[in-house]
């Protein structure tokens, strides 16, 4: 087995340059996904080097930028939960972050890492969709709605690094995760919902975190019952080790009803 090299870049510019010029290079942040896959040797192609983004100051922190909140790609969920801007403007993101793993995982997990890993079960990914967040990279801004292009496939180019995620503020989003237990659980269904504009984003029910377009269209017409009926056709759940397609379909409809009531009640 070849030895994987570890590279700690000095700056974001250094990281961008190294990523572009080093064959077999794989970005690493908190390691909550990648270190597991590396140890199990399921990363394809097998990386020759790890590019450690964890310590880059440019990728840390939560900032208010005009009418947006910008979160560094390598900021930890613990840092996100502690941010006053997040608590004040992105309460659904704070709620989602608190459901991720437990202290050990929240101390290491990052938005950039979860976006790049693009797991359909990523707990914060539906929240990003419901807020219409924008993924900022070293070269462009990608609406998160255009980011997940297939099972664990993203719109990122081969040498493109995620640097931050931007969230517009002033939107009310409700969040709910359904798992086997409160902590350390991978979602069976995870959902984030906004009433105005109509956004219904769901994880663990398809090969990507998805927006339920038919349900959103019904909600746009003010047809709540129509949205709850339509969402069953928007999702593509499967039977797997965590749950069944039938369970996920029923729970998706129930959770949508609950979240729509909670966003209505809050206004």
């Amino acid at each position: 087995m070849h030895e994987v090299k570890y590279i700690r870049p000095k700056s974001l510019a250094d990281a961008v340059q190294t990523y572009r010029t080093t064959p077999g290079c794989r970005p690493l942040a908190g390691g909550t996904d990648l270190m597991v896959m590396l140890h199990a040797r399921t990363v394809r192609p097998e990386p020759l080097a790890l590019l450690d983004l964890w310590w880059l100051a440019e990728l840390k922190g939560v900032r208010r930028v005009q009418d947006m909140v910008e979160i560094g790609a390598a900021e930890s969920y613990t840092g996100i939960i502690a941010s006053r801007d997040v608590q004040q403007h992105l309460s659904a993101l704070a709620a989602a972050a608190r459901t991720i793993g437990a202290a050990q995982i929240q101390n290491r997990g990052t938005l950039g890492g979860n976006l790049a890993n693009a797991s359909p079960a990523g707990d914060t990914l539906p929240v990003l969709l419901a807020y219409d967040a924008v993924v900022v990279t070293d070269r462009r801004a990608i609406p998160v709605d255009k980011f997940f292009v297939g099972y664990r496939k993203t719109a990122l180019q081969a040498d493109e690094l995620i640097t931050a995620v931007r969230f517009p503020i002033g939107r009310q989003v409700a969040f709910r995760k359904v798992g086997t237990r409160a902590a350390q659980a991978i979602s069976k269904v995870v959902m984030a919902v906004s009433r105005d504009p109509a956004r219904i984003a769901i994880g663990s029910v398809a090969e990507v975190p998805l927006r339920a377009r038919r349900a959103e269209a019904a909600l746009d017409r003010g047809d709540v019952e129509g949205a709850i009926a339509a969402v069953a056709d928007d999702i593509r759940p499967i039977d797997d080790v965590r749950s069944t397609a039938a369970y996920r379909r029923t729970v998706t409809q129930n959770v949508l009803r609950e979240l729509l009531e909670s966003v209505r009640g809050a206004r």
Partner: protein
Amino acid sequence: MRFTLNGREVSFAGSGARRLLDVIREDLGATGTKEGCGEGECGACSVIIDGEVVDSCLVAVGQVEGSDVITVEGLADGGRLTALQQAFIERGAAQCGICTPGMLLAAHVLLEQSRRLTADDVREGLAGNLCRCTGYTKIIDAVLSCTK
């Protein structure tokens, strides 16, 4: 590369991509840290890095260059156990012992953050540490006995 392990500076010459867990156990001989699942689910390999509790199976050793790492061996001061360790013994908060180092470290950080904790705070703070003997009640009692 160098980092601090239990207050002592250590150096490591191998690949920085290796898991911190493996380097601590195999290269540095601190076998108090246990491997459970190797997937960040069970917390048996918990260590404290710069004051935060982290699963050492998820950390590449290169990432702790210049950091302060504490394992269960670093809790006691010489032969003198901490109040938390003493409470674990007195209250029978260990059965098979595999989860104990991680439980102690996660609880240690929790108590550093606040001495005013409810049973729910302790349960949430230790949610990342699984005990497969399911002896949680005594563990939670032991931690609560160290609160104000």
